[in-house]
């Protein structure tokens, strides 16, 4: 009985954590490891490209959530079990 509600909660929690964490992680990882570490770009340029990349990652995550909510949310509701008496 409690199972579907808990599943929805887990899904929403996982997507929320992903949406909040992914741009921050993408910003700092791409700035320090990729743009400044591997390519050696100057600080301002690496800042800007990391910010752009973080925003793109953010919108991909948001799109994934909207797709999930749109395709998964309107599943036909299982009929409540008939009362036995």
């Amino acid at each position, binding site marked *: 009985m409690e199972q579907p509600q808990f599943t929805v909660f887990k899904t929403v929690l996982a997507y929320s954590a992903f*949406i*909040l964490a992914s741009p921050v992680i993408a910003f700092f990882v791409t700035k320090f490891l990729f743009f400044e570490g591997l390519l050696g770009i100057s600080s*301002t340029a690496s*800042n*800007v490209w990391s910010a752009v990349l973080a*925003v793109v990652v953010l919108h991909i995550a*948001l799109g994934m*959530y909207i797709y999930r909510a749109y395709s998964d*949310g*309107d599943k036909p509701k299982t009929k409540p079990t008939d009362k036995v008496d």
Partner: protein
Amino acid sequence: MSSELTETNPVYGPFFGVMGAASAIIFSALGAAYGTAKSGTGIAAMSVMRPELIMKCIIPVVMAGIIAIYGLVIAILIAGNIASPDSGYTLYKGFLHLGAGLAVGFSGLAAGFAIGIVGDAGVRGTAQQPRLFVGMILILIFAEVLGLYGLIVAIFLYTKN
């Protein structure tokens, strides 16, 4: 003492940059908070009768949170570039940073207000007529893009030299 500061590097130059970083996150967070609260009341009223729609109707809250992330990105960019005036932080850079912060801040405020009002009405309407959901998402995306425009202008201002 750095008494030979010219008038292009005055001692109050970083004040504008700091105000830009602060206003970027303050006004974006204000808009995001309004959007979250307004659409949250809608979700609370809707989910009393249709609790199975909660997953769909969290979307305005998520989009309001994204507005705050725009402001956070610009605030981090500006804060990482502020220096003391005698290490080359000109008044011009301070003005650019103030402009960048205000651009993303007030765009985020406007977008957050729009998301809040649309989210409230849209969530309540989706509970009555599920086909409204697509329309609500489209309107929310158009509201969200207003904040993105501010972010783009802010990044352009930030990269000017």
